[in-house]
């Protein structure tokens, strides 16, 4: 009898737990699938998740996320979120483009949004969020060229894919624009916009690679480096912290890394912002008030979808003249008077 | 110091290893303990050294009961064990090995090697051990290494010395010297327990003999009045014949012809130095020699397991100098390897798998890529019956068999097929009297059926009793040949040749 009683008790607890999980699923739920960088990459996965978190706070919705450990996980992770538990599924990253498309086409009633991918033609139940990152990166390139003491700056990417290389394009072109205006000869290492070729770690995970690549660029004379590789850049930041910011500064990407990488925040000259948190939150809002429509949203300097982060610790180090030039260029890009194509 | 075991019983699950054993060990006396493998000798000695505690019974030292709780307690009470397998660090000196574990230390844990060496030298002199305390173990011959083991227990103030199969690794000359040491220890008042299964040795050295069989003491007696046959009967439980039965010597054609064979070791030392000999059908050729004088390399070269540097080997009229082991095997060469654990069998394989270890590819046992396991099983059972391999089932792992049964399994596999030449290296090493008798008779059967037989053994007695012709190897060369068909060979002469005294 005693055993039976205990068993029943166990069943009751289990049932309660089960129902607990089901009842909590009844509210509006936004789900996110990260790419292999993970939710705490201090970069775009984290920024997108911040959008979900902001919505959780503002609208009282429920948010869930699934981390992908390998590319083979994308489809599986998407699958495990299907089945009606999520009102909208947000996938993060260009590399999830195919998996998201397949899932969206197989499940036309499920609403999706993907960061960093635009479908052509568009899919009715997917919103692609893309960013004119090159605009913000252009400003960063100009700033870095103006701040460099060695006349050499550098960049490297995670994988040679458009959402990564647009940063590098803008960075290079910004520096070239500075040379053109000032008659200087600042070199950018790590990316050739013409050949579409440069330095890539070929992963979005290894902090060791981030350190090695930054070290190599530093050895070649670069004193400002922009890593475009998610958490890989944290390794570069660690190197800059050890060397000292007078030797090596880092330009952050995606989020304001001064805020997300708080341990090494002193090394960030600025960050090239890609305001995925804003666009993700906007998509969630549109689903909630039933205005969701498949297509593409583009974040620009004009609509604050992209931008340059504050200089924080370097506020005083950046000359006022350079600051005002950057403001002018920003205005010029917005009104189209400055071409960022190089 | 006197030690008495009173009513000792030790069980392992359903097996009773020692059953109400009473034994007295007296100072100044050599007690011979005789028994087959598995008779319970080791269990008893492990109880005496404190490794096992008995289920029943008592140990008394000088009349006072003691209670050993761990392996350290035996030596602390003055009972020292010299194991069959040495436990020495090869790269240490004798003195370092002796003090290992009980290092005399000065202040600040300083290792006082000078004192240690002096103590070792004192013990050396007292018992006539003649061991250089500063020699490295790896440079010493086996016989001297054994004395280091004895030094170790003496250094730990042992009054009772248990010697487990001490002569197994020694040459006849070394045995004689060793007996001298045992006698001097006895005369100095030590109590010695001499464990062996060699009858003539125990008669020679023991002052008193106890025979153990099936965990019980089955006989006790005075070596002066007991004969080998009586002891063997006590040990095995039935009359044992020591006379190897063999048919008349009638050699026929030459089967194996080895000419000017040179074999190098891996370090390019010469292992076999221009050896030439032949083996005829119906003849047993014994190769005597102290271990390490090239016999192993010679056998490996003949069986195709070792590269031949120079010279030639022909078998059944064909040159096989460069033939593979398998080719030779298929031609009818059987090889009972000197170390069954190293190469003769696979402990983790079943008995039936081991029974076809080198014949599995034969058409009898295979069909295309498949092995015909039902056929293998049936054959293995036949082999096991024919060769008296005692096992509950052929599905048993070979590692679970006793040493004697493992050897019978290997011998069965090698002899139960069409053979022309049987090469048996150490065919009875570590076996008990019953198994030895059996294996010898099967080897002689092979000879009488017209096979050539080569026997390599470190037991000179074995070579002497089986061979028609005896070759002696020393430092890679065949230094002497004795004809045993005309009459008994002078054992002393063979022993001298083994020691290199031919020139």
């Amino acid at each position, binding site marked *: 009898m005693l055993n039976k009683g205990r068993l029943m008790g166990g069943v009751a607890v289990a049932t309660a737990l089960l129902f*607990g*999980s089901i009842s909590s699923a009844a509210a509006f739920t936004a789900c996110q699938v990260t790419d292999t960088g993970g939710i705490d990459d201090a970069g775009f996965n984290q920024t997108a998740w911040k959008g979900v978190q902001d919505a959780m706070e503002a609208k009282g919705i429920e948010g869930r996320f699934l981390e992908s450990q*390998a*590319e083979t996980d994308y489809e599986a992770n998407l699958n*495990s979120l299907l089945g009606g538990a999520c009102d909208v599924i947000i996938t993060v990253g260009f590399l999830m483009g195919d998996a998201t498309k397949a899932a969206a086409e197989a499940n036309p009633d499920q609403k999706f949004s993907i960061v960093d991918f635009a479908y052509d033609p568009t899919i009715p139940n997917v919103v692609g969020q893309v960013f004119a990152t090159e605009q913000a990166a252009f400003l960063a390139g100009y700033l870095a060229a103006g701040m460099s003491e060695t006349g050499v700056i550098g960049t490297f990417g995670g994988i040679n894919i458009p959402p990564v290389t647009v940063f590098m394009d803008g960075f290079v072109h910004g520096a070239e624009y500075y040379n053109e205006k000032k008659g200087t000869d600042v070199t950018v290492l790590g990316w050739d916009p013409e050949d579409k070729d440069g330095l890539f770690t070929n992963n979005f995970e290894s902090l060791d690679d981030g350190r090695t690549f930054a070290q190599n660029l530093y050895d070649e004379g670069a004193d400002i480096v922009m890593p475009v590789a998610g958490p890989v850049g944290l390794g570069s930041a660690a190197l800059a912290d050890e060397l000292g910011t007078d030797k090596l500064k880092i330009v952050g990407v995606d989020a304001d890394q001064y805020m997300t990488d708080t341990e090494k925040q002193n090394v960030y000259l600025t960050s090239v912002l890609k305001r995925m948190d804003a666009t993700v939150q906007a998509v969630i809002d549109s689903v909630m008030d039933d205005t969701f429509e498949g297509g593409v949203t583009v974040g620009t300097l004009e609509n604050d979808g992209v931008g340059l982060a504050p200089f924080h610790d370097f506020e005083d180090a950046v000359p006022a003249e350079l600051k005002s030039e950057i403001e002018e260029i920003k205005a010029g890009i917005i009104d189209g008077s400055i071409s960022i194509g190089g | 110091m006197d030690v008495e075991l009173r009513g000792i019983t030790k069980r392992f699950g359903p097996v009773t290893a020692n059953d109400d054993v009473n034994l007295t060990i007296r100072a100044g006396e050599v007690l011979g303990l005789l028994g087959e493998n598995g008779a319970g000798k080791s269990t008893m000695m492990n109880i005496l050294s404190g490794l096992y505690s008995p289920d029943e019974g008592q140990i008394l030292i000088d009349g006072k009961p003691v209670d050993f709780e761990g392996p350290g307690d035996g030596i602390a009470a003055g009972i020292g064990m010299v194991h069959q397998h040495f436990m020495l660090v090869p790269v240490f000196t004798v003195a370092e090995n002796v003090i290992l574990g009980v290092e005399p230390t000065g202040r600040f844990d300083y290792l006082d090697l000078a004192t240690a060496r002096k103590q070792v030298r004192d013990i050396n002199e007292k018992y006539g051990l003649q061991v250089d305390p500063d020699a490295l173990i790896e440079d010493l011959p086996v016989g001297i290494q054994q004395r280091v083991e004895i030094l170790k227990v003496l250094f730990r103030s042992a009054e009772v010395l248990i010697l487990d199969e001490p002569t197994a690794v020694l040459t006849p000359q070394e045995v004689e010297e060793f007996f001298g040491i045992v006698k001097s220890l006895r005369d100095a008042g030590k109590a010695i327990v001499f464990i062996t299964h060699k009858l003539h040795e125990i008669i020679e050295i023991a002052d008193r003999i106890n025979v153990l069989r099936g965990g019980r003491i089955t006989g006790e007696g005075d070596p002066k009045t007991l004969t080998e046959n009586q002891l063997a009967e006590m040990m095995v439980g039935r009359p044992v014949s020591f006379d190897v039965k063999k048919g008349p010597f009638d050699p026929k054609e030459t089967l194996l012809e080895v000419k000017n064979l040179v074999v190098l070791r891996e370090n390019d030392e010469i292992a076999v130095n221009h050896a030439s000999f032949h083996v005829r059908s119906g003849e047993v050729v014994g190769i005597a020699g102290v271990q390490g004088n090239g016999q192993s390399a010679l056998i490996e070269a003949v069986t195709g397991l070792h590269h031949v540097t120079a010279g030639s080997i022909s078998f059944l009229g064909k040159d096989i100098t460069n033939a593979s*082991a398998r080719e030779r095997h298929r031609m009818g060469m059987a090889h009972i390897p000197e170390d069954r654990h190293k190469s003769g069998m696979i402990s983790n394989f079943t008995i039936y798998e081991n029974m076809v270890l080198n014949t599995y590819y034969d058409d009898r046992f295979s069909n295309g890529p498949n*092995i015909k396991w039902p056929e293998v099983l049936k054959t293995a059972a036949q082999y096991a*019956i024919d060769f008296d391999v005692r096992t509950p*089932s052929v599905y048993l792992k070979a590692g679970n068999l006793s040493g004697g049964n493992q050897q019978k399994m290997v011998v069965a596999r090698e002899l139960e097929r069409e053979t022309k030449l049987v090469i048996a290296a150490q065919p009875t090493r570590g076996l008990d009297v019953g198994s030895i008798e059996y294996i010898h008779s099967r080897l002689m059967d092979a000879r009488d059926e017209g096979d050539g037989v080569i026997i390599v053994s470190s037991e000179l007695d074995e070579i002497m009793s089986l061979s028609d012709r005896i070759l002696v190897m020393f430092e890679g060369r065949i230094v002497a040949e004795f004809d045993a068909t005309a009459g008994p060979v002078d054992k002393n002469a063979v022993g001298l040749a083994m020691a290199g005294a031919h020139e």
Partner: protein
Amino acid sequence: MTDTSNRDTLTAKLLQRAAPGRAEFEDLVIVPIFAVIVALIVGALVMLATAVDIQTIGRSYLALLQGSVGSINSLSETLTSAIPLVLAGLGLALGFRAGLFNIGAEGQIIVGGIAAVIVGFSFPGMPWIIHLPLALLAGAVAGGLYASIAGWLRAATGAHEVISTIMLNLISYRLLDYMLGLTWMQREGRSDPVSKSVVPSAELPRLLTDIDPNLRLHAGIFVMIGAVILVYWLLFKTKTGFEFRASGENPDAARYAGMRASLIIVLAMATAGALAGLAGANQVLGVLERATPGFSAGIGFDAISVALLGRSHPIGVLFAGLLFGALEAGGRQMQVDAGVSIDLIGIIQALIIVFIAAPLLVRAIFPWGFRKPAERKE
């Protein structure tokens, strides 16, 4: 002399297979079950230590169960994850049996996957009955050849396979990066490292899309079952398998028995590599339908655990692979339902291995589950 009838009874007795002992049963069944239980308990403690509340822990284990076997979708995911683990695990198990500690399954998966994907996109219009087997074969052959490099190095120069296979893994990563950067390999209109997609005639067809289009289980499961049977047959029924096992257990005895060590090493490595290559082909033809950087996803390393857990026996590997597949699929559900980190699944997997590798520890924790050691000696 024994008379005939006596001999027959003796023969019959010797041919009786000893009933599987209780000790064997304990080692093969009870220890793994307890190991899983202890691992889950310790996993719960780890969660507690990282400030996860008890309710969430309960929910996450329920999710683990649901996500692995709770629905047809879960079962499909479990099997999909298990297929490459079992295939690569079989290869490693075979190597272990032959005494070769092959760490290179990861590299063999990559090389096999590359070969399979090239064949997979190169012959549009070929009938599937030819194309699919050809793509699988390409994966197996490439994996086998790649592994036999390590085998050859071992046989010819004595270079230890642990070192050489690790190095071959590193080479394969860069080879993949390089290959995915080649224009003829890359998807049209993309400069990022993604290969062309496998054409449908070379895809391992999905089996359950009629029930639900999201079910990923594909025909690779038949490849897996076939491989289990093949490896079982090879190891235990053939001459080659006998040679593999003999060389693994006692190389000296194998040499004594006239087996050719170098040939066996190369052959065993090649077979192991072919199975790992099949696992790679399976991933690109059945799951991803193309090759991407990191498509091997560490399967080659998980497969080492699978092979060890399965005690290098094909059936054991099958069950171990299914367990790991279930943990992977269930782990995903744990993340979704309870928000527990996926890393925890890795910890639980590791704990299971630790406890299975330490049967004495498990016996000590659950003394009532086993007979007393003193009584075990038969």
